């Protein structure tokens, strides 16, 4: 290596540090520090009148079983919701990126994003009405299907999930499909590959980073979901997010809440790491993180 190359390398490094500094600071102040505080709280005790009192005990972790149902509900409905979002979102993203004419593509893409810009709460509120007694059940009643109850059931929560998070699934898949070189598809077709084979061997692997990112985004948001079960589940469908809100804002058991939060973080990290290990290789080297 020549001297000038070494100098260049050094200045490159220095630049890299400068560029990394703000985000590193943010991570330290708003991620590492808060998580340490939560960790400290999680081995503490609930003060007599609620809140936190310094202590060193693992009781809060040993007591996690008390929220087993909440974990169970979350761990069933979150993956189910993610899967449904993927199944529903992929064809749309594919249509937008590959089939739609370039002229309308952008317009159609905007149409997917626009609902996302209306308040999530208002959209969920619309479903409270649609699934409530004066909505769909009344319509079904007219055509002779009586006594259907939708609102405040796990099904209602699932509908809300798909509705709320579909755009989040479509967007990353679209981004990765859009990069896909259409000549590859044409080449594959020209070589006589069946459409499905083309899809399986060309499109799907190339869109994998988008699928992986989309699934992760939706899954992560669902694992911490609070509003949808609260509004469409009527407080009867209890997610870990609802348990956390109750522990912090109702029963003031901050240490136990912190332990639940830590458990949730660990579950997330383990599940997602396993998931990424399992999907490694499909995502390409440089996006292996995601």
């Amino acid at each position: 290596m020549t001297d000038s190359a070494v100098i260049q390398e050094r200045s490159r490094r220095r630049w890299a540090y400068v560029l990394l500094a703000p985000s590193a600071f943010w991570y330290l102040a708003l991620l590492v520090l808060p998580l340490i505080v939560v960790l400290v709280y999680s081995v503490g005790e609930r003060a007599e009148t609620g809140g936190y009192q310094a202590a060193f005990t693992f009781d809060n972790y040993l007591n996690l079983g008390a929220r087993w149902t909440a974990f169970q509900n979350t761990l069933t409905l979150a993956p189910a919701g993610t899967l449904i979002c993927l199944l529903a979102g992929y064809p749309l993203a594919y249509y937008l990126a590959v089939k739609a004419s370039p002229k309308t593509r952008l317009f159609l893409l905007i149409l997917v994003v626009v609902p996302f810009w209306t308040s999530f709460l208002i959209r969920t509120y619309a479903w409270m009405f649609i699934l409530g007694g004066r909505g769909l059940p009344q319509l079904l009643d007219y055509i002779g299907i009586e006594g259907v109850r939708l609102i405040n059931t796990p099904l209602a929560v699932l509908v809300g999930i798909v509705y709320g998070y579909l755009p989040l699934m479509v967007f990353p898949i679209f981004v990765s499909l859009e990069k896909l070189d259409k000549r590859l598809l044409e080449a594959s077709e020209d070589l006589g590959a069946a459409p499905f084979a083309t899809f399986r061997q060309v499109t799907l692997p190339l869109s994998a980073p988008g699928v992986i990112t989309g699934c992760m985004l939706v899954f992560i948001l669902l694992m911490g979901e609070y509003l949808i079960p609260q509004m469409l589940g009527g407080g009867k469908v209890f997610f870990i997010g609802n348990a956390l809100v109750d522990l912090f804002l109702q029963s003031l058991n901050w240490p136990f809440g912190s332990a639940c939060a830590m458990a949730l973080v660990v579950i997330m990290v383990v599940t997602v790491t396993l998931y990424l290990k399992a999907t490694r290789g499909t995502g390409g080297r440089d996006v292996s993180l995601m």
Partner: protein
Amino acid sequence: MLRGYAAFVYLFLYAPIALIVLFSFNSGNNASDFQGFAFSWYVKAANNKLMLGALKNSLVVAATSATLATVMGTMAALALQGVRGPLRTIFDGLTYVAIMVPGIVIGIATLIALVTTFDAANALIAGIWPGEAPPKLGLGYGSIIAAHTLFAMALVIVIVRARIAGMDRSLIEASADLYADPVATFRQVTLPQLMPGIVAGFLLSFTFSFDDFVIAFFVAGSQQTLPIYVFSSIRRGVTPEINAIGTAVMLFSLTALITAQVLLRRGRKPAG
């Protein structure tokens, strides 16, 4: 068939929105019983100072945190290309965890960490403050922006890096071979290629922040963001005013998106 399916998805996406819009013109004051056509709820919403304040707060918070996240995230994504070793591992790990930690945990963790820090800082300020009423740190805009930026920044890092990974490197190499200086290469070759990722990252960040309820619910002070206001309103019992607000916000977003698109098109070189 795919087209039909797409149409169905759009129906699914827009039926509830159509309902929101329809009921925003309801003359009755019940959000679920259509009694006649009226414009009165828009007038009411336009005069609702609280709601306008919440909307303004939300816009400020979303714009600030999306900008911060996009700038810092893009910087980090570019820098990470040239960084190896433990620093890279740690940074990747942090990005990974930032994305992994659910919003609700971020909200709770930020709340207790900030409050603990503020308590200590306020005691310190009170101790050294010469005047009578020392300034007090508290939850507010800053805390919401800070917490939103965290998640959004990690998101931008991931998106931009995915874009970098898919980038056509031969162009950069060609540019370097032609002895273009690095800044010019960056501006004329790298940045345009990254732009879709950066824009996507910004849009996602803005959307996330504008719509976030749960983090703001924990870390907001007495300021309300629009989602917090709407949540309160649903508790108070909903009138079609909420529908009018939702419709207005949607129109606003649509206009903003279209304007941005037109501006981007115009800015693009014709040969592009």
